């Protein structure tokens, strides 16, 4: 029985390894096409001119970063509740209820705030539930922790891109490099929290790292909505320029935006996949070192 399971896993591994280069090529093609669309094919914006095209890199990077951080949050929760059956089932139910509630809200709540489509609310809800159970099914045990680390790292990379492209867009259009508006500030705090997360992972003693990091991720997840809300109050008291604006978007621009998002999602998946394999390999090597240390205490690892 065990041999068969190992054989299955070997075959699974091999097919994954073969799929990787194909996926990489597809992603490269998609990214090039998306770049072309963003720089050439997309219509030029009326007020901002060509600089507005930064939008096609800035926004997809932000959405990708948020998605990655959300996956990290899911991994953290699953790691913390995995031992306690009651907490585990509560978490399962919360994930299901959120998805159902989002779909219900999309149908029932009218009118929705401006710029928010019912379809995106429903999709977000289903994505939350879907991601929760997908992670649970395919990444369990210590792999949950590995995935948490991977998504945090890659999320920080994408978040850095957001924080660099944001001011580069703001300066020529609104004349200022930075403003403490809701979205920029929340993104900055999210970035800071996850950098501190990565530092904690690096500096903590290896046995405790997964639990401590998971707890920090929970704190971060609680903090960001509070940041958003506090800046929102601050802004109602001290109105300031809004970067990025809100409201509706030209359908041709929306198309380019979504193409770029798809391209960056694939790119993020590629990087996460590579980083994940690297992490798994690293943990195996560390285990071997540890075993060697046990078997022969005289030799140092």
């Amino acid at each position, binding site marked *: 029985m065990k041999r068969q399971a190992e054989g299955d896993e070997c075959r699974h591994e091999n097919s994954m390894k073969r799929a990787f280069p194909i996926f990489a090529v597809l992603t490269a093609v998609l990214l090039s096409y998306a*770049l072309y669309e963003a*720089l050439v094919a997309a219509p030029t914006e009326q007020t901002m001119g*060509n*600089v507005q*095209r*930064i939008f096609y*890199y*800035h926004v997809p*990077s932000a959405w990708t970063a948020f998605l990655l951080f959300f996956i990290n949050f899911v991994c953290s929760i699953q790691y913390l509740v995995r031992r306690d059956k009651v907490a585990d089932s509560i978490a399962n139910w919360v994930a299901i209820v959120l998805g159902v509630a989002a779909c219900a809200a999309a149908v029932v709540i009218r009118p929705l705030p401006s710029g928010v489509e019912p379809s995106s609310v429903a999709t977000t809800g289903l994505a939350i539930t879907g991601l929760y159970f997908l992670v649970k099914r395919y990444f369990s045990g210590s792999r949950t922790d590995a995935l948490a680390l991977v998504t945090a790292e*890659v999320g920080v*990379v994408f978040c*850095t*891109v957001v924080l*660099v*492209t944001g001011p*580069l*867009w703001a*300066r*020529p259009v609104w004349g200022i490099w930075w403003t403490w508006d809701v979205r920029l500030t929340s993104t900055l705090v999210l970035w800071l929290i996850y950098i501190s997360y990565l530092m904690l992972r690096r500096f903590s003693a290896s046995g405790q790292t997964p639990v401590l990091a998971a707890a920090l991720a929970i704190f971060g997840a609680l903090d960001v909505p509070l940041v958003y809300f506090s800046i929102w109050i601050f802004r109602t008291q001290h109105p300031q320029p809004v970067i990025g604006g809100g409201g509706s978007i030209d359908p041709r621009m929306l198309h380019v935006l979504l193409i770029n998002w798809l391209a960056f999602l694939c*790119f993020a998946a590629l*990087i996460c996949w*590579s*980083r994940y394999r*690297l992490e798994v*390999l*690293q943990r195996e*090597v560390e285990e*071997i070192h540890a075993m*060697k240390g046990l*078997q022969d205490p005289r030799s140092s690892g």
Partner: protein
Amino acid sequence: MNFLYAAYSATWIIHIIYLVILVRRYHSLRNEIDELKKGKPTPGH
């Protein structure tokens, strides 16, 4: 316009830096694995 190119370049520079870091870590890990393989000619059991 310069800002546009700066933003796109910055994006790719950041991604490339991260990928380079990953590749280097992979190579050093590979070396470590080769060392380990060389270092245990005697079987464990």
